[in-house]
């Protein structure tokens, strides 16, 4: 899905501020930059909720076999489309598979695709960025134009084309998302790092005669890393939505794989008749995305508290 990516585009360039509902207390004096950011983050209630949601997601993914009540692939054609019950908490699908176990296992695809694709995108962005920086003018221009080209493809359209070439599956989804998000990722990484470098307090620290290493470790690093983390949190959320959208369109992971987009897509035929089929996976994906958005918001606000 391009929505979140889009939000980042102009957002970063024009400093898109957001209000958070938590309360901000002035940071105590004489505390490190790290501590200050952490303190502001933890004081933001939504951010903490987000953090809990994200941790829960990771935990669910890791412990899926322990949490699931059934084999997510086991079919029971004698008990299809059963409403939620004591045995099947979220009901069963058109092939009699346990929906609860499929929702639980679905977290694994979300985590793997979300993290791996953004990691890859950052890697491509960083390598190309480094190349551009190292070789300078011509290479820089060429790379920037290539980035423009990839930037001009709406994420989903680009990803579908790549998947067509590579076939359906988890790896193609990860690669296709990475290929069509690195341009966005690299632009934003670049601008967020640049903006920190130019900030007043860095200039001030320099003027006060602080050593370069001290400036980097105590001032630039914490802020840059927090900015990047904030951005990555958003991007992972975006990637998870994009992955589910691909499956929803029937070009993501294989249909037998327990995955939220797949589940919602196959529930379409039963719209209004068996609504529980799409509701549970929807709740799972919404909580996941909100988790990442809250964390991203929290980190950004922690960096830039003046706009709350």
């Amino acid at each position, binding site marked *: 899905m391009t929505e979140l990516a889009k939000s980042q585009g102009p957002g970063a360039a024009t400093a898109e501020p957001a209000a958070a509902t938590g309360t901000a207390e002035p940071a105590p004096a004489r505390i490190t930059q790290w501590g200050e950011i952490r303190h502001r983050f933890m004081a933001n209630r939504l951010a903490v909720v987000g953090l809990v949601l994200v941790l829960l997601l990771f935990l669910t993914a890791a412990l899926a076999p322990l949490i699931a009540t059934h084999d997510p692939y086991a079919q029971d054609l*004698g008990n299809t489309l059963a409403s939620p019950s004591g045995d099947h908490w979220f009901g069963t699908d058109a*092939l009699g598979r346990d929906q609860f176990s499929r929702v639980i296992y679905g977290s694994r695809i979300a985590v793997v695709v979300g993290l791996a694709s953004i990691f890859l995108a950052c890697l491509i962005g960083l390598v190309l960025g480094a190349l551009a920086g190292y070789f300078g003018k011509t290479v820089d221009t060429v790379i920037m134009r290539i980035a423009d080209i990839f930037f001009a493809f709406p994420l989903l359209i680009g990803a579908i084309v790549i998947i*067509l070439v590579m076939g359906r599956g988890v790896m193609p989804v990860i690669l296709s998302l990475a290929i069509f998000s690195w341009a966005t990722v690299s632009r934003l990484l670049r601008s967020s790092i640049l903006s920190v470098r130019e900030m007043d307090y860095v200039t001030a620290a320099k003027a006060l005669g602080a050593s370069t290493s001290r400036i980097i470790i105590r001032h630039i690093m914490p802020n840059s890393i927090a900015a990047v983390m904030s951005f990555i949190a958003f991007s992972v959320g975006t990637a998870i939505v994009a992955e589910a959208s691909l499956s929803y369109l029937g070009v993501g992971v294989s*249909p037998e794989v327990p995955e939220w987009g797949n589940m919602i897509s196959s529930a379409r035929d039963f719209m209004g008749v068996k609504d529980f089929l799409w509701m549970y996976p929807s709740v799972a994906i919404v909580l996941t995305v909100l988790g990442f958005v809250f964390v991203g918001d929290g980190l950004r606000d922690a960096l830039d508290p003046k706009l709350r």
Partner: protein
Amino acid sequence: MRGVKSAKWVVGAIVVAMAATACGGNNNDSGGKGGATFRLGITEPVAIDPVNSQESEGGLVTHNLFTGLYRVNTDGTLKPMLATSGTANDKGDEWTFEIKKDTKFSNGEPVNAEAFIRGWTRAVAKSSASDVAYHMNEIDGFKDLNSGKSDKFSGLSAAGEYTLKVKLSKPDFEFNKRTAHSVFSPVPKVAGAGDNKSFNDAPIGNGPFKMEGSWQHNQKITLVRNDDYGLDKAKIDKVEISILNPSSSVTLEYKGFESGQFDWARMPTPQMPVAKAKYEPQKEWLKYDSSGINYVQAFNTESPMNSADARKAISYAIDREQIAKGVFQGLYEPATALLPPTFKDVYKPDVCSSCMKQDKDKAKQYAEKAGLKPGDTLDFGYNTGAGHEEWVQAVAKQIEDVLGLKVKLNGLPFKEALAKQQEKGAKGIWRSAWSADYPTADNFLSPLLSTDGINPDANGKALGDNRGRYSNPKFDEMLVKARETKDAGERAKIYNEAEKLAVDEDQALIPLWKRSQYRLANTKKFDGLEINFQEEPNLAEISPK
């Protein structure tokens, strides 16, 4: 909420206004007595000109715009239309058709032997690149015309104004049944070449209906009764065909029927049990076991499916009954033969012994004989976006559970799926289906199972429809013999033996379900509605109540 309501009101007002004009039109057209408009929805056809009309949507229009020599009854028998007689010589390689005299195209041109020769030649000509021309490939001179070497169809000749002679390159005592396909339609001189866009979009024919205006792509096609029709005239005035969005067409048709917008509709499978309960008692629910089969194609030449035993193991492992009930909600029935029940004279049930019922022990025995071991991989391919995802997973799971194989599902868009099956060295099994073009056993057995049906190119790609690459000389001989047999009863016997050999003994492919069609039909407004051989409403025969 106010805005919402008023928007709905506006739309409602338009509908009312349109209904009012429609009524007015009816009264004028029919001069007061009877007369009605039949409304239905289809998806955008590929073509409605007989030169390239191919799927059931295009067929619905073409069949009503053009009348050829024969058409097919629901039981698979032939009904003469413009042919007053059709006879083959003793060898079966020359046919003579006498054509009903003095009928006309709706522009006044005569429908004679020349008109048929013109239509058939136009379809086969190279520049038409017609997807349906191959149905004429047994007529003499097909190759030369199709490759552009000649612009004449040498096998066709007119022996008098209304006598059409057809010379075949090999005997076929069932050639007359082929001519029921719409590509064998006559066309008027104005048709021009096959790629004549103005005729493609507004064909002028000799059928029970004619076009009103031209085809409005993605919106609608309107047909009106042809009052100069040479055979029994249609009793309804008008057919309004709305063109619907392909992915939601079925749902739209169903909703359209429920709201009274359509007189004919398909239904989404999940809604069928509800629809059946509601409409069957009102006699608005039609069923027809049509001329098609759903089956699993096995690649006969590559391991692991390169033995009859392996294929039987798979077939015995599938519980057709359970999937028919569980996934298809009891609306599909297991198939126990390859040929469909609509081919009355050749159909025999229970040809395939492994199809009768799931037998886990037999499945395991055959697997052992074939050397299929638990843990072995079986590739199972299917085309995506066509509603196969669900049952394919169910079949895969049954094979895994019974035989312990690891079934690898591989879903691809249709063209890639086709390329994968055609590839040299394709292995495993694929979901497949086949529908009849005309009611001959040969139309199933020859393309799907004969050695000629493989049609490999230089790289070993199978370009024909026998992508499972089954090849048995004995079977091929039987088909040739059947085609040369004049007596229908004798011929049916040979086809039965051939089917038994390929589908039971050799288990070249694995039949799954019959092709059952269900429709909702407005029988309150129209008399005599049924699903015809081509799975269309029989528009030319119905009458308003």
